């Protein structure tokens, strides 16, 4: 058994920043991550980091843009924390050596991005995330923080009081990929989840193969509610064959979208009369799909993104990486021809419910980064707002977990106060009424309360789970189940959503769950058994898919990224609230909590969102 003050699960931008902060606040920290830190998907981020750094800009404007972009589903205290602290964090990164692109006077460059009222996106070429990730990892190496890489976290060790709000997280149980050993990690002060995105529930995604939403699923089964899960961002410019992202930076620099008829449809068909290509992502994605659906798509599948007019010099200076991506993954030379693009799953605005310090309702359990929902992005994230989220909330959670006093949170978590029960009429039974094998923590059983007993118990259960999966010898393989989930999500819970389709998705997910009961691991080896790990990930994908669909079915309005056929407008009087899904006795429970629109100095009154 390993013992530390703070355990950080995941070593992307959020996890690394949290570990550094916790260590600086005096804690003994370990990072446990299924990939080596530099392999995390933060490295794929291209466009940039928003920070109000310059004369003429300030954090309040940034907060306003963020709330507007979120279509007012974000919590103001969190959005304000993000925009207030982002400049400081960006400057900190610069002092740690991050290779930002520079202006002539040697200062960090900034460029315009969709939905921003000021060009405040700092960047490092079109490889901002790569530089951010490596810079942070360098600081972790410098500080000698222990990193357990290629250790897959199977579950959280959470006590099993009746109400999630009374539970405490005492550590995690992880599987060492190289050897097949299952070990426990006890955390004296806190566990910080930073497991990143969940794009693998879709089959066309900009996310990595490792982005399977493990953190969200584990926290969910430990009783922590998942918030606004239906809010999935589809990025308007991904390469059709692979889903590789073409950064928003291309449009930021002046790239233009054309349909098959050579029309600049963002303007000519009135999707965004003012901002055109730079309207926010949900708007552009829907515009593209509408073009395709109305027969003006190229090969009935995609549209063209053209940057040739920017000139070779500018492209090489600021967007060089894009040329390589287009060439390697689509065989297109961006200097000579327009690039084919279509919308693809990109980002989960929702996630593990946290306050603005990254705390969940379970004591000592934190979540930061894409897996969390502090709620800064609401129903639509602005480009360049995720990376600041990693560093701002990463730092906050790290410090808080290490015991720093950060004051009282303004965003409530758990079923405290003003909550509203929800109801849903699903076409099938949801969740795993048969008890599942997800290793749900709160599955009754002996009331373990001492930290040691909780950790031991979880370790035992997880060892059994692994043995059980290894033992089984025939049935279904995870790849089939995963493919079925991805198929139904892509077909039914995509950019355009319809009640019947959403219900169909629930039926499919239910069927997939049934099949998962017979899942088996074909590879008998204990050395580097990726078959086993993917089987466990698939279990998490099932829960994630269900949470997303439940949220999407519940929310009967059109807000931000969430579009419903029958409900073509934003309905603030009824739906200005967060969709919450929590795991209760093996099935999802739906409820709502209000959005906090009161910020430090102003209240963000919902306005019409037009670009």
């Amino acid at each position: 058994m390993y013992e530390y003050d703070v355990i950080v699960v995941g070593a992307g931008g959020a996890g690394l920043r949290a570990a550094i902060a916790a260590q600086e606040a005096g804690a003994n920290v370990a990072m446990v991550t299924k990939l080596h830190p530099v392999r995390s998907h933060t490295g794929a981020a291209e466009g940039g980091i928003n920070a109000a750094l310059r004369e003429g800009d300030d954090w309040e404007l940034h907060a306003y843009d963020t709330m507007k972009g979120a279509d007012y589903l974000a919590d103001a205290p969190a959005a304000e924390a993000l925009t207030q602290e982002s400049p400081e964090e960006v400057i900190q990164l610069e002092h740690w050596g991050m290779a930002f692109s520079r202006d002539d006077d040697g200062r960090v460059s900034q460029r315009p991005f969709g939905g921003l009222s000021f060009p405040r996106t700092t960047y490092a070429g079109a490889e901002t995330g790569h530089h951010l990730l490596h810079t942070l990892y360098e600081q972790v190496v410098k500080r000698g923080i222990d990193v357990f890489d290629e250790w897959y976290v199977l579950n959280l060790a959470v006590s099993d009081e009746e109400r999630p709000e009374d539970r405490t997280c005492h550590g995690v149980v992880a599987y060492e990929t190289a050897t097949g050993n299952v070990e426990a990690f006890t955390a004296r002060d806190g566990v910080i989840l930073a497991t990143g995105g969940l794009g693998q529930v879709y089959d066309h995604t900009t996310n990595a193969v490792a982005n399977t939403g493990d953190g969200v699923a584990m926290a969910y089964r430990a009783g922590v509610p998942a918030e606004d899960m239906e809010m999935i961002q589809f990025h308007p410019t991904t390469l059709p064959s692979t889903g590789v992202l073409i950064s928003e930076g291309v449009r930021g620099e002046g790239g233009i979208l054309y349909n098959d008829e050579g029309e600049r449809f963002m303007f000519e068909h009135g999707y965004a009369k003012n901002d055109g290509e730079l309207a926010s992502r949900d708007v552009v994605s829907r515009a593209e799909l509408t073009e395709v659906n109305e027969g003006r798509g190229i090969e009935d599948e995609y549209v063209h993104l053209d940057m040739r007019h920017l000139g070779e010099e500018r492209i090489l200076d600021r967007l060089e990486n894009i040329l390589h991506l287009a060439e390697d993954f689509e065989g297109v030379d961006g200097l000579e021809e327009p690039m084919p693009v279509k919308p693809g799953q990109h980002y989960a605005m929702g996630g593990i419910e946290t306050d603005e310090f990254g705390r969940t309702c379970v004591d000592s359990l934190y979540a930061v980064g894409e897996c969390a929902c502090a709620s800064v992005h609401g129903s639509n994230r602005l480009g360049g707002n995720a990376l600041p989220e990693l560093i701002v909330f990463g730092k906050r959670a790290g410090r808080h977990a290490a015991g720093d006093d950060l004051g009282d949170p303004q965003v409530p978590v758990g079923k405290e106060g003003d909550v509203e029960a929800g109801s849903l009429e699903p076409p099938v039974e949801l969740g795993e009424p048969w008890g599942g094998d997800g290793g749900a923590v709160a599955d009754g059983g002996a009331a373990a309360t001492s930290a040691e007993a909780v950790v031991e118990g979880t370790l035992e259960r997880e060892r059994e789970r692994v043995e059980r999966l290894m033992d089984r010898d025939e049935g279904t393989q995870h790849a089939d189940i995963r493919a079925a989930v991805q198929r139904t999500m892509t077909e039914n819970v995509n950019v355009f959503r319809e009640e019947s389709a959403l219900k169909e998705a629930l039926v499919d997910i239910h069927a997939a769950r049934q099949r998962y009961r017979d899942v088996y691991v074909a590879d008998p080896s204990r050395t580097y058994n990726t078959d086993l790990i993917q089987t466990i990930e698939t279990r998490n994908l099932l829960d994630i898919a269900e949470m997303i669909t439940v949220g999407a079915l519940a929310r009967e309005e059109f807000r931000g990224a969430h579009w419903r056929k029958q409900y073509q407008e934003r309905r603030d009087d009824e739906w200005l609230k967060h969709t919450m899904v929590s795991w209760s006795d093996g099935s999802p429970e739906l409820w709502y909590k209000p959005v906090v629109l009161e910020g430090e100095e102003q209240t963000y009154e919902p306005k019409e969102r037009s670009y």
Partner: protein
Amino acid sequence: MSQSYDRGLIEDFGRWREFSAGMWAWIFHKFTGWVLVGYLFTHVAVLSTALTSASADPATVAANQDLYTQTIRTLESLLVVRVLEVGLLAVAVFHILNGTRLLLIDLGIGLDSQDRSFYASLILTGAIVVASVPTFLAGVSL
């Protein structure tokens, strides 16, 4: 628990088929360098027969009957030695040309055309060697 498989030297040596220009250049340069040192040592050994000649009777020397002159003459009359000399020339020329190439690379010149300059060294070596064969084999009795 986890073991691993060390593929060992055999497999490494088996990769020569996959070598690229720079690697061949490295191997050849190594080989030619070693041949040259080897030659340097033997060369000095042969030349030091001159020591006896120096103390020999001046008349013998004048008649070219001294040990040094005799040794050289005998050696030079052998075809093998002549052929080896051509080989030595090839080795030396390649080492010089590729050595020059390496010196330029050290100065940061021609990094992008390193493979071409290697091929050029090879071809030039070949040309020089072929061109000097007549000179080298001149007057040898078969």
